[in-house]
């Protein structure tokens, strides 16, 4: 049996299509196509694959978009190494959406489907975006509904490939998500973005692959199935500022606060700098800091078996912090052929992520429970993508 977290196609994926035009109200998004290759390498896990996004106006007031995304996962993470065997897996996600412009209002509608062997997720979304006050203000509202089907894989005779996989479906999860956002022109050089989101989930919300650890009467560490609440409501609010600097550069900053009924309180701080250079180059750098408190029912080691109604050792629910430093470069070009392509960009993005847990120990190194070090890891996140406008 493997131990890993199921794949959840979060309902906020809908915002990709609903709110990206937030600062350019009453104008449909540009016709463009993006081909991206992504790579994550860190924490004993590699995830790589392509993503293709194509958007095209079919009339003056209707724009259609389609996205296809693939994760090729190879995992030997700390969770896997401590209790099970490494595995390989593939996830695919497809989505379709439409944006309809009527006066100063954009209506968006879409559908997303994510599939992997032990997790199926379907999501529908709708949003409306209204421009007002001479296009200085844009207000958007969105609603998303998601349905997940959760399974647990096991493997026959140690064959950790598709041929040996046996999937047992263990439960369903429903998601409802409401979003509101405001984009405001403050001055001729300054933009403000405000976002608020409420997410409500119920059903099977835990990972069938994770377990809780406890001490038995003899002082030995043992495991039992984790149990989490079957409802969860979270609220998130964020503010973004973007400022145009006199030497043709841009500076941005953001802050987000999140709190949910599982007791997690999180703060996210971000800053970025964008600098065009020479004729066709644009460079950018970013820094991001994230910190969260633990869920009320999380513990790295419970004092005894069944010591609480809800028990979890999901490290996503632990107390931890992470830092991310990012660098990006973009080169713009104008291909002579085919003529219907107006311009293109070739882009490289690299992010270095450092995660440090405050109450999640690395039991793979052995030793007594009190002598095990805290867990942490570094990851490299690389993206290469090419974009065309037509």
């Amino acid at each position, binding site marked *: 049996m493997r131990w890993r977290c199921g*794949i959840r196609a979060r309902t906020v994926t809908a915002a*990709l299509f609903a709110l990206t035009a937030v600062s350019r109200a009453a104008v449909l998004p540009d016709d463009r196509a993006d081909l991206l290759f992504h790579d994550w390498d860190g924490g004993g*896990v590699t995830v790589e694959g392509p*993503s293709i996004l194509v958007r095209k106006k079919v009339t003056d007031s209707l724009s259609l978009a389609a996205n296809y995304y693939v994760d090729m996962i190879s995992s030997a993470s700390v969770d896997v190494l401590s209790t099970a065997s490494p595995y390989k897996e593939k996830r695919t996600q497809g989505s379709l959406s439409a944006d309809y412009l009527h006066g100063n209002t954009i209506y968006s509608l879409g559908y997303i489907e994510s599939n992997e062997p032990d997790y199926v997720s379907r999501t529908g979304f709708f949003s409306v975006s209204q421009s007002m006050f001479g*296009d*200085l203000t844009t207000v958007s509202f969105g609603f998303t509904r998601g349905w997940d089907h959760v399974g647990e894989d096991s493997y026959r005779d140690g064959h950790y490939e598709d041929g040996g996989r046996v999937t047992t479906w263990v439960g369903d999860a429903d998601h409802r998500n409401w979003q509101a956002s405001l984009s405001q022109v403050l001055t001729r050089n300054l*933009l403000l973005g405000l976002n608020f989101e409420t997410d409500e989930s119920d059903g099977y919300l835990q990972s069938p692959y994770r377990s809780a650890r406890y001490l038995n009467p003899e002082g030995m560490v043992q495991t039992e199935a984790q149990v989490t609440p079957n409802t969860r409501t979270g609220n998130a609010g964020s503010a973004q500022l973007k400022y145009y600097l006199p030497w043709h550069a841009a500076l941005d900053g953001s802050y987000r606060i999140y709190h949910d009924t599982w007791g997690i309180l999180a703060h996210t701080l971000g800053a970025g700098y964008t600098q065009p250079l020479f004729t066709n180059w644009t460079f950018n750098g970013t820094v991001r800091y994230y910190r*969260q408190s633990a*869920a009320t029912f999380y513990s790295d080691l419970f004092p005894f078996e069944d010591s609480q109604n809800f028990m979890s050792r999901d490290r996503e629910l632990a107390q931890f912090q*992470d830092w991310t430093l990012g660098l990006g470069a973009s080169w713009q070009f104008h291909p002579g052929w085919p003529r219907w392509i107006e311009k293109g960009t070739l882009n490289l993005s690299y992010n270095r992520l450092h995660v440090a847990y405050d109450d999640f120990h690395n039991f793979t190194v052995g030793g007594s429970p009190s002598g095990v070090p805290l867990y942490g890891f570094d990851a490299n996140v690389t993206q290469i993508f090419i974009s065309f406008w037509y």
Partner: protein
Amino acid sequence: MAQRRLAIMAMLAPLAALLLCGCSPLQPWVKPYEREHLADPIMSFDPNPVSSTYLDHVFEVREGARGATGSVGGGCGCN
């Protein structure tokens, strides 16, 4: 008595001014011809949705918080 009436009028004057302003359309304080900088591609909150979608997805599956990113999300919970 006259002083009291004057004080009441002084207090009501800003309110009356606000109400009168409400009767006229709000004028954009940044005119369309002053938005050259704001229209520059470097001022976009999300210049590359396909890229920010992926990065939001990276954070979302490894952190407890979610949402209100202003743009995107995704969902691989692999560890």
